[in-house]
């Protein structure tokens, strides 16, 4: 069973990307389990994904990085034991600390996952503001990721995109960075890269 954790601040494009990955995996015959966490008590993203026919488990009313960490593990156990999914896609709330989420998963994982991959999505329009007011969260998102998408590259200015790239590099110089627009199709070369972790 493979695991992909999709992190990023609120409104960065996580749900749009997760939906693309889930559809691709499903089209390839994989059994996909999606775990969505929202801090509000009424879920929005989970309802939207269910409407699209995806298998979604929601954890609402708090962050899986702290108050609801036990729910995160019990849901993963359910997906493993009762549904035998091939891949789990986890979307923590955009307010959750990615480092804490991964730590909780790593503490639980004693060979459950054949691979674990974290993709961070950064909003080019807002990364400067996030660095200014929520630096620990931004740092945690980037330093733990295997790959970073700079989203909204089509609507952000070139200065905003450059700033986003430089910020990511300043936190994690080794990481792969891709400038994208999640509203549009991802390139075939990018899918080729992602397929290594999906199938």
């Amino acid at each position, binding site marked *: 069973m493979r695991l992909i954790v999709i992190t990023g*601040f*609120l*409104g960065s494009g996580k749900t749009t990307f997760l939906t693309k990955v889930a559809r691709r995996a499903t089209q390839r015959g994989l059994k996909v389990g999606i775990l969505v966490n*929202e*801090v*509000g*008590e*009424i*879920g*929005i993203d989970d*309802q*939207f994904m269910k*409407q*699209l*026919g995806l298998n979604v488990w929601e954890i609402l*009313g*708090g*962050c899986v*990085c*702290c*108050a609801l960490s036990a729910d995160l593990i019990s849901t993963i156990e359910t997906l493993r034991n009762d549904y035998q999914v091939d891949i789990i896609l986890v979307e923590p709330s*955009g*307010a959750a*600390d990615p*480092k*804490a989420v991964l730590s909780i998963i790593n503490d639980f994982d004693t060979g459950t996952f054949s691979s674990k991959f974290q993709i961070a999505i950064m*909003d080019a*329009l*807002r990364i400067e*503001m996030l*660095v*200014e*007011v*929520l*630096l*620990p*969260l*931004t*740092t*945690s998102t980037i330093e733990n990721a295997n790959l970073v998408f700079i989203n909204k590259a089509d609507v952000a200015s070139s200065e905003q995109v450059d700033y986003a790239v*430089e*910020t990511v590099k*300043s*936190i994690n110089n080794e990481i792969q960075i891709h400038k994208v627009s999640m509203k549009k199709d991802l390139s075939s070369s990018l899918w080729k890269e992602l397929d290594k972790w999906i199938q």
Partner: protein
Amino acid sequence: MDTMKLEPLSGRVRFFSDKAVTGSVWGKLIGNLFEKIAKRCESASTDTVIGHIKGLSLFTGEKHIRVSVISGSYPADIESSDGLETDEIEFAINVIVYSLSAKRLESLFKDELRSLQDQTRIKTRIEQLSTQNQIHPKIHKKMPSGWNNTK
């Protein structure tokens, strides 16, 4: 450093029009409402950070209207399926704003619903509204003003 307050507001609101309008018109109307709420939140405190103000209305046949606002400075992102036309619509709404209390957020939200009713022919009814007093770990701490990672 002060810990940034995060007290989400979520709920379900029903909107009524005196005539059936398209999904696109509903999307623009809700988008405009969310933009106003975002601007009000941002002017309420200099420390305010909008996480998102997001809404979803689902219809049969995989049709939907989805509206999201991430700042008072950017227009709402609106998705609306073709072929929708209705005089009544229910939106699930999720408002996540740092540094405003749930009580203040609820008051702003209700104010803007009232303004919508006063300024248009749209009527609204809150079906459900919940607020949370949630404490997050130190990761949500605000950096000192002017602090910049690239310096």
